C-alpha cells in the first residue's frame, strides 16, 4: 500500500483553481472594460476645479438666463463660444461686486488678461464637431450636456465615445426635438411621439440614407 500522493481535498482544490483561473481572466477583462467606461477614465460627472466656482444651476435654473446669453455663438459657429470676461461683468459690475470669489474676474477685466478655465469636453483633435448644425437641426443642449442646469459645478455628462455619437447619427429620430425647444433644459424627448419626431427629421432635412454615419462626416 503506497502512500497517497494527493491529499484528500486535491480534487476540490483543482476544481476551485480551474474555476478561479477562468474567473480571473473574466474578471480582468471585466475590470478593464469597467475602467474604460468608468469616470476614472472618462471623467464623466467629475467637475474639475475652476478659477471661479461658476454654478450653471444658479444661473440657468434659478436666474433663468438663456444659454445663448453667454454661449452666444452656438447657433452660428462650430464652438458654442466661451463667454468673455466682459459677459460676466455685464451683470457682475452691478451684482455681487465685492465677492472675493469674483476677484479673478474683476482682475481679468481690469488687466485684459483672460481667465484660464479648465476644459471639460475635450474632443480628440481628429474629430470635427460643429455646434451650430446640431442646434439648427433640433438637437437640444441637454441631449449631450445633460441636465447642466442642475449642476452646481459643471461636469462632463457624456464620455464622448464614438459609439455614442453614432447612436444619434444612426437614429436621429430618437433624440430630435423642435427647434424652439433646443435651449429648453427640461424638454423630454418623449413629449413628441415617434411619428412626430420622424416628421421633424424630414422637415429639418436630416439625411436618413446613412450619409450621417460616413467616416468623413466627423473625421475630415
Amino acid at each position: 500500500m503506497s502512500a497517497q500522493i494527493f491529499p484528500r481535498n486535491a480534487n476540490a482544490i483543482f476544481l476551485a483553481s480551474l474555476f478561479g483561473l477562468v474567473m480571473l481572466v473574466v474578471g480582468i477583462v471585466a475590470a478593464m472594460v469597467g475602467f474604460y467606461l468608468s469616470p476614472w477614465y472618462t471623467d464623466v460627472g467629475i467637475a474639475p476645479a475652476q478659477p471661479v466656482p461658476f454654478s450653471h444651476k444658479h444661473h440657468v435654473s434659478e436666474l433663468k438666463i438663456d444659454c445663448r446669453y453667454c454661449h452666444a455663438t452656438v447657433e452660428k459657429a462650430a464652438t458654442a463660444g466661451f463667454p468673455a470676461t466682459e459677459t460676466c461683468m455685464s451683470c457682475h459690475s452691478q451684482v455681487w461686486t465685492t465677492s472675493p470669489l469674483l476677484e479673478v474676474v474683476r482682475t481679468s477685466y481690469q488687466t485684459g488678461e483672460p481667465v484660464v478655465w479648465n476644459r471639460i469636453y475635450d474632443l480628440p483633435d481628429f474629430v470635427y464637431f460643429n455646434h451650430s448644425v446640431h442646434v439648427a437641426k433640433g438637437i437640444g443642449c441637454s441631449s449631450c450636456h445633460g441636465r447642466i442646469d442642475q449642476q452646481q459645478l459643471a461636469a462632463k455628462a457624456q464620455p464622448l465615445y464614438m459609439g455614442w455619437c453614432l447612436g444619434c447619427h444612426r437614429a436621429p429620430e430618437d433624440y430630435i426635438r423642435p427647434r424652439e425647444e433646443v435651449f429648453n433644459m427640461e424638454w423630454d424627448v418623449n413629449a413628441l411621439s415617434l411619428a412626430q419626431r420622424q416628421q421633424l427629421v424630414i422637415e429639418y432635412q436630416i439625411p436618413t440614407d446613412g450619409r450621417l454615419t460616413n467616416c468623413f462626416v466627423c473625421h475630415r
Partner: protein
Amino acid sequence: MVQSVRRSIFTRIARLAWLPLCLLLVACHVDMYDQPKYKPNDVSSFFPDGRAMQPPPANTVPLNSYNPNSPLMTGRIEGQLADQLPPEIKLDAALLAHGQSRYNAFCAPCHGLVGDGNGVIAYRGPMTVTSLHNDRLRTVQIGYFFDVITNGIGKMYSYAARIPPEDRWAIAAYVRALQLSQNADVTLLTEAELQQVRAGR
C-alpha cells in the same frame, strides 16, 4: 519537391500570423488626439498674451462685411438716430420672431419678458432696470434701441460683441411689438378682442 518547397513557404507565412496582433499596440498612440494646432479658446505659448484666439487689430472690419458707417452698422443716418429700419432689414414675421428669440435670450434677464424692467436679475439685483413702456421710449427713433444695444447706456454694457447688427435690428423691431402689446390703441382691435380686453382675459 515543388510541393514541399511550397509547403515550407506556407508554413513560414503561417508562422507570421502573430504579426496582426501588433495592430493592437497601435491604438496606444495618442499623438493624433492632441495635434500641434490651435482650436478655439486654446491656450497659446506662441502669442505673448497667451491666447490662441487673437483679438482683431484696432480699426479692422471683418472681410465681406458692410460699410461700418452705414445705417445698418451705426443705427444713424447722417449722424441722426435712424427713424426707420435700414434698407437691408425687412420688417416681416420672421424678423419679429427672430427678434423675440434674441430679446428673450439677451434682454429679458434684466428687462423682463414683458419689457417692464422686472426681469429675474432685476428682481434679485440691487438695481433699477428701465421699463420699455413709457412715452419717451415709445416715441424715440428705432435707431435709439440699436444704438443702446451697440454702445450700452448707463450701467448697461455694450452687447455688440454678442449680438450681430442684423440681430440688433431684429430686437429693436421686436421691442416695438412689445411696446404695442402693452399699450395698444383699442381702435386697432376687433370687436371680439375688445370683449376680451373688457373681460381682462
